[in-house]
């Protein structure tokens, strides 16, 4: 099976964002403090699990890179990925999900070995709020399984997929090809790469590929980015002081009334 994992990476949220904020400053932030998001990590881990189960599985990664020197590229390669491709993220922003999805679809269709399964995190980087995977599936005209938690290779080349659907979980059996939007889940925490593979990946050099235009016509443009104000209360927080027993009693009273009388 050929698995394609499309990764975006995020700017590490532990670091303060630049002020004043510009599009270029945000890109620089992603370049300086790169991190795989929990959703990226879950998508990559699912691919690695499929290879654990069947060593014939080939894994390719397509990465939205800040540059050819993006620190995430050797990190991803250290998981013994068969092929790591990188494209210039700046040219294909995730906030225009329809255009990006058409570009992905054109690239996937032009690949030498067609993918059977495309895995993306359910949010694609810092600029996406969850529309890229669905747009990619629509552009490919492949089925989408949202909130994917687990994928296994079943009988007859079918895939068994466990997903969250509303309040319940279900197991689907579907034929390839398919797009899965992978959610974070305790079982999908990304493993650590072996040290020898980390050392080998550090010696690799990467280059950026030119993505096909496909039929991608940008219909959305970015007008502005501004720092969002953190939500604050208009009234000062009323602290419940005293020893723990006093605090527990006051809290219980407050919660029992669900705030109606306070």
């Amino acid at each position, binding site marked *: 099976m050929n698995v394609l994992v499309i990764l975006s990476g995020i700017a590490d*949220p532990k670091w303060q964002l630049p002020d004043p904020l510009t599009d270029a400053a945000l890109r620089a932030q992603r370049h300086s403090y790169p991190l795989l998001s929990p959703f990226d990590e879950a998508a990559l881990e699912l691919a690695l699990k499929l290879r654990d189960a069947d060593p014939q599985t080939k894994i390719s990664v397509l990465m939205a890179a800040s540059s050819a020197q993006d620190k995430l590229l050797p990190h991803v390669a250290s998981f013994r990925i068969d092929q790591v491709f990188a494209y210039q993220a700046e040219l294909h922003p995730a906030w225009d999900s329809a255009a990006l999805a058409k570009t992905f679809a054109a690239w996937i269709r032009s690949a030498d070995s067609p993918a059977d399964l495309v895995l993306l995190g359910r949010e694609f980087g810092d600029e996406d709020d969850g529309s890229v995977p669905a747009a990619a599936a629509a552009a490919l005209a492949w089925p989408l399984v949202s909130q994917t938690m687990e994928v296994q290779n079943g009988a007859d080349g079918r895939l068994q997929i466990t997903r969250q659907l*509303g309040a319940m979980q279900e197991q689907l059996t579907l034929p390839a090809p398919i797009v899965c939007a992978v959610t974070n889940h305790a079982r999908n925490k990304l493993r650590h790469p072996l040290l020898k593979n980390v050392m080998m990946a550090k010696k690799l050099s990467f280059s950026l590929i030119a993505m096909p235009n496909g039929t991608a016509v940008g219909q959305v443009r970015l007008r502005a980015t501004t720092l969002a104000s953190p939500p604050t209360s208009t*009234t000062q927080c009323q602290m419940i002081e005293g020893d723990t027993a006093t605090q527990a009693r006051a809290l219980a009273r407050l919660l029992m009334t669900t705030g109606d009388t306070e």
Partner: protein
Amino acid sequence: MSTPRQIIVLLPPADSCDSPDALLQAAAAMAQGGTLKVLAIGSASHAPVEPRALPASAQWFEMRHAHLTRIDAEQLLPVCLEAMEQAGAADHALLLTPPGPLTEECAIRVAAQLGGSYLGRCTQLALDAADVVATRAAYGGRVSMQLVSASGFCAASWRPATAKSHTTPSAASHLPQVLPCAPTTQLPPLPQSTTIESTDKIPPLENARLVVGGGRGMQGDEGFALLTQIAQRLGASLGGSLPTVDAGWVPVARQIGQSGKFVNPRVYFTVGISGTPQHLAGVSTDSRIIAVNKDREAPIFSRAEVGVVAQWQDLLPQLLQELENATA
């Protein structure tokens, strides 16, 4: 002079979406001078959202598909497309849906089918001549991004900033013209699927009056077991931040925040939650926050109305005891 953009609200069955009142009010305000079209999808087993008074004239299309049993985007998409066609709503339009995984997927796929743009999960939307101007969060809620599209067909999920669960119709409300329709489009074959029986008996986050939420500070399953008992004692729902879902302490269906559910309870009781923008983006500004954290400087206290500085290991057992005594 160009034709004004049609405003259309697409609503999945009532049991599959949060209260759409705030969205409907905001959409009606946007459609002033024109007619708002509401496409309420349903079936025999899943009732469509019921018509309600709105501050603008509206056509309310009740789209009951006789064979719609499974509610997912794959099944809803053809019904949505037929509903759009029956309502004459495909050209020069802005399609709005309430936020949520199901509705967002539907909106993206409808936009893709019609060659339009999807603008994301928006906090603000406005029409500016031929453009749709959308504001939405990025970078985990730390950045506000303004996007513009002149595309003939635009779609967006919208949670208006002043969302309230009980929006009272104004005096100038109009009852919509209700148009029952029976879509006949053929649905895709049902997938081979098995439902996994859930052991989670706590009420869902949706429409909960009281939500108990835990964060990374709970340190493990033991803390969440205590929170679960407290939630059960209060008849509350239970949620967690993204790191607690990553750690497996809470199922993903109970994740609150930018990447999870949006909750709008009367009271949100948080324990061990620091109050990151990513998490608070999933909590209504109308909710009253009561926060417990061991760090007096934690950002959650700048948003909370009531705070307790304490170690949860000391406080929660005593709180549970107090609740048990009170309800014995």
